């Protein structure tokens, strides 16, 4: 799965994407793109459509209509699935639901992409060895009593994000989607996650970063896409706006809504 990260302009591009749940329009005619090696902050209130949009990109939901391009090539929504999106090099780290609580760390690492031996069974030894390497080198758990056999329920919030993020890194994703990764984390752990977002950029990958905390978003993102009630209402480059202006703009949006 070695991917040449230079031959495309946009890792993901959406054209006129519509998603209806019955009569409710969750996404209205959305168009937006994530360029090669770009970090896009997806901003919007609860119910603005962030989650729906992410579900479409990650293959959990099929849109009512619209087009999806990955690395400038159109992807058919026929047979659109999480697995297919994984194979395209897109990984997601969810705020809470990325890991199975009762399952061991090594199972969580490889679930859905098991390493199999010649009998078609899971190669437990190999999976554990790789998970162990990742644990020590990339995620940096040292001497905290966590092993690859520990169930996720014994990990702290930050450690969990570390595992989910390490997993995305290991599978060499070109686009990593972070869905509110710093919710309920301590300051020290937030710093770790933000560092990881910078690492995504440094390693030539792209990222969609969803977060309510504007300080975090502004710090790491190159561009902001603002969603409101299922629509893209604005796209702003970082150099066009200061953090204060961004905050004021968002505040004005929500006041407009309540009037």
């Amino acid at each position, binding site marked *: 799965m070695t991917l040449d990260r230079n031959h495309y302009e946009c890792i993901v591009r959406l054209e006129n994407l519509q998603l209806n749940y019955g009569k409710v329009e969750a996404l209205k005619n959305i168009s937006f793109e994530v360029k090669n090696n770009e970090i896009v902050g997806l901003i919007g209130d609860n119910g603005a459509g962030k989650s729906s949009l992410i579900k479409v990109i990650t293959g959990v939901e099929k849109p009512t209509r619209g087009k999806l391009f990955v690395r400038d090539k159109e992807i058919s929504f026929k047979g659109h699935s999480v*697995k297919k999106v994984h194979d395209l090099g897109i990984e997601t780290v969810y705020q809470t639901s990325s890991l199975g609580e009762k399952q061991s760390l090594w199972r969580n690492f490889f679930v859905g992409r098991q390493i199999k031996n010649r009998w078609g069974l899971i190669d437990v030894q190999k999976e554990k060895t790789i998970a162990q390497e990742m644990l020590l080198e990339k995620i940096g758990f040292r001497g905290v009593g966590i092993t690859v056999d520990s169930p996720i329920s014994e990990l702290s919030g930050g450690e969990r994000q570390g595992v989910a993020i390490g997993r995305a890194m290991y599978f060499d994703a070109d686009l990593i989607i972070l869905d509110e990764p710093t919710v309920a984390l301590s300051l020290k752990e937030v710093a770790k996650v933000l560092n990881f977002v910078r690492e995504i950029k440094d390693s030539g990958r792209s990222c969609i970063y969803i977060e309510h905390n504007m300080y975090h978003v502004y710090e790491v993102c190159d561009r902001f896409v603002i969603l409101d009630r299922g629509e893209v209402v604005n796209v702003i480059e970082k150099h066009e706006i200061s953090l204060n202006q961004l905050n004021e703009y968002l505040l004005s949006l929500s006041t407009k809504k309540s009037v």
Partner: protein
Amino acid sequence: MQSNDTNAINGAGSGKDPEIRTHIGKWARIEGLPIILVFLGLIGLFMIAAPKTFLGYYIYMSFLSTIPPPLILGLGLTLIIAGGEIDLSFPSIIAFAGFVFAYLFKNYQWTWAAFILTILAGIIIGLINGLIITKIGMPSIIATLSTGFFWTGLTVVFSGGLSYNIAELEKLNIYEFFVHRIGGIFPVQSLWALGIAVILWFVLNRSAFGEHILFMGDNLQVAKVVGINVDRTKIVLFVLMGALSAFAGLLLTIENTTFWATQGSGFLLIVMAAVFIGGTSIFGGQGIIVGTFFGSFIVGSIEAGIVATGIQGFYTRLVVGLVLLVAISFHLFMEKPEKRAILANFFKFHR
């Protein structure tokens, strides 16, 4: 002592004391160990209380012929419960499968063809369960309750509520193949059950399908986002349960060389009891095949044990209930790391 306790709790909870964590880990990692000990203890108790019966081999051979059908059901149910689902329809499959086999044998003298069609019937019933649960979105407890009634009812309607005597089966090789007594004493169906247990252990613990079952039972949302085809996994799971139930029904019918319209109706609660005594969590996400194996033997031996000790047979269910309560309390205790640590500390202190 007081401060020791607190340390242990903190250690296991926050990971500051790796020594305790690994110490407990190793101890608890032998699958089904507590339940194996309970089983041995129970047999030991019976040996003391009823030495005449329990020091001979005959009673054990009897267990090995009667326990395989509920054991096979329990193994299948372990996977279902690990996947966060439940199946209440397997007793009806025992009846229906027995009917299909007995009917085909009695009327057409089919043996192996009847065997294959019976398994197929189980697969179809399982498939119907799976489709109702995934495509209609009915909770499995309701879906299988309904289909259970339906197939039991259909069995009674088709058979006219009668029993079929198929004693001619005893001369045929299918009888030998499934319920032969090796050396005149050892029931071969116990080897079938053991084989299925080994296979299902690998299915649950070492196959991608098994891992998908575990994640599905753990958290359905997580299962979806990591790319598991949840509907397909559920359907395959119920098909597997259907096939296993049909096979259990066959063993029962062939062993008895009789089909009863009501066969299997007593299995629902004892099979569930065996699974939970074995340590499989009702909350899903985890299943203990070894536990179910010994849990089935515990439940299966309690009745014979109680009768042999001279206590009235009426006490059987009461004792099963008590064993169930104690076993599950123990398992719940073991699930919490901080409580495990207290337990370990307790043993350390007394060593």
